């Protein structure tokens, strides 16, 4: 802190009083710049409420969950006591939990692929102006507003093995000979069809994220590519995809998080059957059915960590800063 400018007369000042005020302000500013950086403390003030909310609603519960995961917390087996990694060892040895991890990874795999492909296609189609675009956009966004349980019930009728619309359409198209059981019969098929329901819900958000990135690409780039003789695919992979990576990465992370947390649709469409049981369903069962809160904490904490790891991995892989 120099303070060297304090009291030095300014040649262009109109009077002494004004000079002093200006000097004083400048000194304070320089001091703050040094302490808070060029932007001062306003950014810190602006993010302060968010930091507090995230701290209260996310960081504190996560920390508490992590700490409690080392304790036996089970009303059926009191008292609460420290057991080290006991909860973690038990959930790693639980075949239902291991099965659910595999299922959840499949949900993520299917979810990311389905959502990304659908969202890209829809966003690409909605990029151009056409009559009724607003209505189409509203319809596309509609599933986003529906609760997971409602969606599950709607799709349960669509997938119904006795009179479902899916069977009816496929049979009338001669793709299947007789009505099929779409859920429960095999793990892959069950997870694919359940994830399809969730994809139906979260694709609108991904579409909007990608659409906003698409619309920010300057038209001149496409004009230049056209002049250079680039074809449609070359333009898509050479200009569009690289320039929407910011929006795309957020969309992919969103679908990873939602797919890993899938619960409602699984519960409504497939119950607790092993073919589709997700890690969140297992967490619910262990915590609220079995009342083993300690193991529930351990599983929840692992789920949070794995979600974060995958999300960070996706961001590092896909996200690139774009400046025009």
């Amino acid at each position, binding site marked *: 802190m120099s303070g060297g400018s304090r009291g030095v007369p300014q040649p262009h000042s109109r009077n002494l009083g004004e000079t002093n005020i200006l000097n004083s302000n400048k000194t304070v500013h320089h001091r703050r710049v040094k302490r808070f950086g060029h932007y001062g403390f306003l950014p810190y003030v602006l993010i302060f409420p968010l930091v507090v909310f995230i701290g209260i609603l996310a960081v504190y519960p996560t920390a508490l969950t992590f700490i409690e995961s080392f304790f036996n917390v089970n009303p059926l087996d009191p008292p609460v006591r420290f057991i080290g990694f006991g909860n973690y060892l038990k959930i790693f040895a639980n075949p239902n939990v291991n099965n659910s991890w595999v299922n959840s990874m499949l949900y993520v795999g299917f979810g990311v692929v389905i959502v990304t492909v659908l969202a890209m296609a829809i966003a690409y189609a909605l990029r151009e102006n056409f009559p009724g675009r607003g209505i189409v956009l509203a319809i596309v966004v509609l599933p986003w507003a529906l609760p997971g349980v409602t969606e599950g019930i709607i799709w349960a009728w669509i997938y119904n093995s006795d009179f479902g619309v899916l069977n009816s359409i496929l049979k009338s198209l001669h793709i299947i000979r007789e009505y099929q059981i779409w859920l429960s019969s095999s793990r892959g098929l069950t997870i694919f069809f359940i994830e399809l329901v969730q994809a139906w819900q979260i694709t609108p958000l991904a579409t909007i994220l990608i659409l906003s990135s698409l619309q920010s690409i300057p038209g001149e780039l496409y004009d230049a590519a056209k002049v250079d003789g680039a074809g449609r695919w070359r333009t898509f992979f050479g200009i569009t995809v690289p320039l929407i990576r910011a929006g795309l990465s957020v969309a992919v992370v969103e679908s990873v998080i939602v797919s890993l947390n899938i619960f409602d649709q699984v519960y409504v469409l497939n119950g*607790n059957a092993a073919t589709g049981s997700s890690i969140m369903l297992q967490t619910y069962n262990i915590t*609220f059915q079995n009342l083993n809160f300690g193991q529930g904490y351990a599983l929840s904490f692992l789920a949070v960590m794995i979600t974060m790891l995958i999300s960070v991995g996706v961001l590092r892989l896909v996200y690139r800063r774009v400046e025009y």
Partner: protein
Amino acid sequence: MWGISVTFDSFVSPKEVTMTLLSGFRREPEKTMKVRQVAVPILIGFMILLSATMGFANGQKEGTQSSAAPAAAANSSMPYAGQEITVAFLGSPAPDALISKFTDSTGIKIKWVYLGWDAMQTKITAAASANTFFADVTDVDWSRVGEYYKTKWFVPLNNYFDVNALKSDVPQISSFIVNGQLIGMPSDASIMLTTVNTADFQKAGITTMPTTIEEYTADLKKLQSTGVNQTPLGIPFAAAEGLSTYWYETTGAFGGEILSKDFKPLFSDPGSAGYKAMEWMVNAYQSGLVPKGYINTTDSEEQQSGMANGQISTIFSDYSGNVGTIYNVPANSKVVGKVKYIPTPGANGVGPNLGNPDGIGILKGSTHVDAAAAFIKWFDTTEIQADISGVSGPSLSFPWALPMRLSAIKALFSNNDLQAQTMYDLFSNHSRAVFPQGAPPWYSQFSNAVYTNIHSAALGQETVAQAIAAITSTVNNLNQNP
């Protein structure tokens, strides 16, 4: 919001705030004061918002607590007058007239909350384990009684009810007693029983209702072979609780029990009733007696709507009350007047009807235990049970399985409810608890093993023997490491 707006106006104009924000914070030195003018109101606004939120939360808590204070107007006939209790009930709202009737007679106000089964259990668990208030009176499911005994989450009701005096009129009360402790009082007399679409049976040439499992199975095949119904039987094969209870009832019909008094498995032997019951259910599905889609059907809605729309002709383990509240309601049913309860066919004659009654109890976080007990006493009187079953007209009734007292079921006779006589007979002579000693504390894990394995066996993903072995292993583990 108001605070924020006023504060902004008094320090700096909204336009200046916006411009400062839009400038990306690259302010000039002379704008230091303005930044402060922006930052300070934001901080103050946030603090106001935070204080308001906390104040709201405190207000909520105080609102609940304040009603705990004894009312000044209390007198000997209405000792709890002025208190308000929260009643969390399964399924449906109570008629206003019924709530008014209680308040008029006791002076106690009721806040009635109704929830689905899953949400109810989750809220009970969350509130009880976190020592927070959820409701004074809540559902007590028969299957969770062992768990509640061990966790001490419910106030024992022995001081409020004479258990021995009630046993003759409320036979299902035993489902709510563990080691002599009354965890909850039955709120209905739900039992599992067999329903048949008599019109379909007659069409198939079946004039005498089956009394044994063998006859019942033969009738199912006859319904199929005569073309009356290709898939006559309803079994909810979704991996959910309804599949477990179906198996318990079928096991009872085959003449056995699920667990011994010390919770050892009684179904492991191929000759046991439980083993045979599972084989019968799985064979029914795999041989096409049950609609294929029922692999993902739950008992509560889809199976019942299947019966109501004529898709199936019979349910071996249906619920008491469904004929009156679902199958005979013209707006929801195509089989009005056709579906009847029959005595459950057993291995050697009429089988038992296992009870799965709902109960109500007082959660330990209740702030008005005596007022809550007064409500349970009032709700379980013969008069009120008859009222809610429709004896006094629709204004006091709501969808209900069956009154919890035999004396209240008798009152239905006078209401020309022809099926009430059958129900009375089944309930008084054939009903018994699934677990006469009370459900084990680890029931949820046991049931999970039951329904997931029967579900898998029906799909052919494992054999019945493997399913039984898996369930047996689960029970043994739970007994060793509860």
